[in-house]
């Protein structure tokens, strides 16, 4: 209409679309919450999903964790040796991994590797009307298809994050102690002395459980509500990766502020 009013209207449309999206997802989450416990009636289905989402993501998670640990070891050694404190390398590597990098990077990789796969699978089921067929047979697709996939992703993420951190700490050990010659007992000793079981490891675990739930919710929602066309599926998988990455990073800031900010 008017070239000054049009952009404002476009912005408004964008915001309304975002709010509508968030509201629809919240309603879907409530609907899903009702079937989460009943989904455990078929634990085999959940195990199958843990396999597809978690076990098959192990390779990328472990390799990435190893390299992140190696880089942290190198960078940390360079900085700490300026202060003559390279003995603290272990605790620096371990705390950054356990508190932050483990949960966050594992969640981002998981969103790309497994979240998109979950969305694509559900979206294709919808496109080929398999979900409608289930409903025809009086089988609740939320309970039989969506629930197990949600659980599979949510169980996998914390486990993957823990393994990521562990492999990273071993990577830091390889660079720090084996290659650069940091004292071995100091590396492990400082970790043992300064890492708190509940605050650090527990805090990281709580974070990664929350990330797992968020990624799982976004992945199944985007798949379940995907437009039943080829381009609709493409858009849904892209949305899953973009939204869950942003959600993980945003949620991480909020949770960190609550847990370590005081």
């Amino acid at each position, binding site marked *: 209409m008017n070239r000054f009013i049009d952009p404002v209207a476009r912005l408004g449309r964008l915001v309304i679309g975002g709010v509508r999206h968030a509201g629809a997802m919240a309603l879907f989450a409530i609907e899903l919450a009702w079937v989460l416990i009943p989904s455990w009636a078929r634990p085999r289905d959940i195990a199958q999903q843990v396999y597809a989402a978690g076990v098959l993501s192990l390779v990328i998670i472990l390799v990435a964790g190893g390299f992140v640990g190696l880089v942290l070891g190198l960078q940390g050694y360079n900085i700490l040796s300026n202060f003559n*404190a390279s003995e*603290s390398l272990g605790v620096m590597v371990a705390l950054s991994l356990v508190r932050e990098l483990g949960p966050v990077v594992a969640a981002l990789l998981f969103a790309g590797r497994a979240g998109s796969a979950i969305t694509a699978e559900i979206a294709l089921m919808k496109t080929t009307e398999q979900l409608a067929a289930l409903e025809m047979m009086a089988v609740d697709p939320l309970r039989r298809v969506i629930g197990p996939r949600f659980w599979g992703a949510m169980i996998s993420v914390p*486990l993957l994050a823990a393994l990521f951190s562990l492999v990273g700490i071993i990577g830091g050990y390889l660079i720090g102690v084996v290659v650069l010659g940091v004292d071995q007992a100091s590396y492990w*000793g400082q970790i*043992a002395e300064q890492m708190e079981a509940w605050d650090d490891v527990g805090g990281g*675990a709580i974070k990664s459980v929350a990330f797992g739930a968020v990624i799982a919710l976004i992945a199944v929602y985007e798949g379940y509500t995907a437009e039943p066309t080829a381009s609709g599926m493409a858009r849904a998988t892209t949305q899953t990766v973009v939204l869950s990455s942003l959600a993980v990073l945003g949620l991480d800031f909020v949770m960190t502020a609550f847990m370590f900010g005081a």
Partner: protein
Amino acid sequence: MNVQRGVELVVGLFVLAGIAALMVMALQWSNFGASRVSGYEITARFDNIGGLTEQSPVKLAGLTIGRVDSIELDSQTFQAEVHMVIDDKYDNLPTDSFANIYTAGLLGAQYVEISPGGALESLEDGDRITMTQSAIILESVVSKFLFDKAKE
């Protein structure tokens, strides 16, 4: 059925591995990487050990020659009794050597530094270093300095 069984097994292993990783990190590594040095043991008593822990290095001229094995409180003298294991290679430490607790760098870990004396006999397994200097506690240094300044 067979395939399903394999999947279940792998998932079980995956869950166990994840939980084990959390446990290892949460339970403080206990004795992970604790290298038991073989060698002979000497002890020393300190008034204050500061942040010295088991596995802290024992150094001579900056070189690590052993490790702190255990630390306990002597209930008679209320001093800390530090047991150190010294590598068998260094078996000619004089009996009148001096043991100090130093800090590596400004913020680093603490360690025991041995300053060799001049005696001809060497320390044997189970011997005690009698001349020791405690860890320097920054607060007490600062308070002493302030106290001395106030007296002037």
